[in-house]
């Protein structure tokens, strides 16, 4: 029996990264490539083992001694996370993505003000006073420290 979930996809991504890392050392001089090959090889071996354990439950059961402490930690973390609202997490990630997109569209200063306003007023439903103080404080901080202090005009 096989199972392919999020965990297997993530460990597979690490495995592919390790494989690419090792492939990149192919054209390097021996002494330069030594350390990347050692760590890349270790990463490839362990991530490959993790991929097998995530995709084949039989392998995970056979090698249960590797996962004992980790499983207890993950169960504790899952119980703690289960009590939180999952939609809140997705909304927060969406807000971060929106903030990054705003930085691309406008500038860091304006993106910060708009994103903080959206988060505090629309998502968190804070008061107008707190929202105004927070946004203006952040804008002033960016202006005085980065634009006036460090003279980084690309923040505008």
């Amino acid at each position, binding site marked *: 029996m096989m199972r392919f979930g999020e965990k297997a996809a993530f460990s597979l991504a690490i495995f592919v990264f390790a494989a690419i890392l090792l492939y990149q050392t192919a054209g390097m001089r021996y002494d330069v490539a030594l350390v990347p090959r050692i760590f890349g090889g270790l990463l490839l071996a362990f991530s490959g083992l993790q991929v097998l354990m995530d995709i084949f439950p039989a392998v995970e059961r056979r090698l249960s001694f590797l996962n004992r402490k980790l499983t207890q930690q993950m169960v504790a973390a899952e119980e703690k996370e289960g009590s939180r609202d999952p939609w809140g997490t997705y909304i927060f990630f969406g807000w971060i993505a929106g903030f*990054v997109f705003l*930085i691309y569209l406008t500038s*860091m200063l304006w993106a910060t003000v708009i*994103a903080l306003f959206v*988060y505090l007023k629309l998502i*968190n439903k804070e008061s107008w006073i707190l929202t105004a103080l*927070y946004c203006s404080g952040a804008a002033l901080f960016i202006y005085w420290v*980065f634009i006036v202090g460090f003279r980084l005009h690309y923040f505008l």
Partner: protein
Amino acid sequence: MALGLLIGTRLIFFTTISGSLMAPGIVVLALLGAYGVGGRFSDVVIAASFGLISVFMQRYGYSRVALIIALVLGGLVEASYHQSMTTFGVQGFVTRPIALTLLALTILVLVLPYVRKRKTAVAP
């Protein structure tokens, strides 16, 4: 130091601020720092991507602390390793007293938990 002692205890109120108010500020500061280095949008994307990677690492039990230590110390370790190999060769790790002591302590620290566990298991 005097300033730290003076205002240190007064800054305790920061711990009473709710996480939902601190979180956007922390995200803003992190992305500000990433953008401030070179003014490139790609730096912001990389910072946000690593934030997402760390969420998955925490969820699936991977150590984020180990990754950060590796990122910070990895380059230094590699450069020092090449310097030692060029200057002293492989035998430099076992013939020089300080290097030998550090190597022995490292092996001891790695092996000791298993030895202790075995002793506890064997003892009635």
